[in-house]
């Protein structure tokens, strides 16, 4: 069963969470506890922080995320294609060229529109 492998990965996941939490808990027990108001303030090189955390973010962040999403899904198609290439031959290569050309249109559009520029 394929689950068999993943039981080990699940155990590793739980173990890693424990491995990460344990020293933090130990630190909570061992470390000094001298609370003060200014210590629990937000760090801003000595200045008090003003206003809320919100900053006007650039729309570029969203653009990069979208591009990443599209290319991520492209990988989901590319990986099986690459794995099966052996039994498919040149026809598959041509099909993949077409697929990637279609997607390249998006990249070229983004490039031409100037949204890949970080300014």
């Amino acid at each position, binding site marked *: 069963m394929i689950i068999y492998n993943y039981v080990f990965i699940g155990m590793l996941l739980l173990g890693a969470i424990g491995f990460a939490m344990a020293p933090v808990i130990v630190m909570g027990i061992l470390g000094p506890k001298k609370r003060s108001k200014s210590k629990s303030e937000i760090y801003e090189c000595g200045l008090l922080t003003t206003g809320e955390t919100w900053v*006007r973010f650039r729309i570029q962040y969203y*653009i990069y995320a979208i591009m990443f999403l599209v290319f991520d899904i492209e990988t989901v198609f590319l990986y099986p294609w690459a794995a099966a290439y052996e039994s498919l031959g040149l026809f598959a290569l041509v099909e993949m060229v077409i697929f990637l050309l279609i997607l390249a249109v998006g990249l070229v559009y983004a490039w031409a529109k100037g949204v890949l520029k970080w300014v």
Partner: protein
Amino acid sequence: MNQILFGVIATLGVLAALGTVLARNLVHAALFLVAFFFLVACQFVMLEAEFLAAVQVLVYIGAVAIILMFGIMLTRNIQGDDTTTVSKAGFISGGLAAAGLLAVLVFGILDDEGRTGRAGWRDVTTRPAVYPVAARASAEQTKAVNNMGFVVGRELLTRYLIPFEVAGVLLTAALVGAIALAVQDGPSTDDPAERAKKAAEHTAAAETEPQLTSA
């Protein structure tokens, strides 16, 4: 063992889904959604579709969650604002509608008779074996379960060729559409006049803009 695992995953999954719907803070809701995605990936593993589980984690946790977070940040819901509240009347009526649908679905699932020649859903208690030893195992299905990446690739470029290319067109359309929507004003958002206009719209925002150069 199988059933206990399923029970744990399903319980956590339903709780995570509820958390997504009920959490007031949008980032917390998105976090619950990530947990839900992960538990769905676990369910895919339980269904022996581990390729799909990896795809689920890659696309949903790796990409969709990031986009949602960026969306939340860009719409100024840093700590969750008032549009995240839920009115009581709306909640009760929505809850009733949802509960009704759940009742109908569960009843339908448990009462299914099955089409002619097939067993009803409630009678299907074991999955068809895919081990070479099992007499019922079909070679193709065995391969599909044990090396799904390969079989998906083969099918993608033969039987599902048209959907595959259409998916490419769809993705390009989504990319182009999203960029066109987002940068509707073009790069001009950066020139000072435009900025001043925007800043007037969000007065609070303009005040909090940090002075990065002074840090």
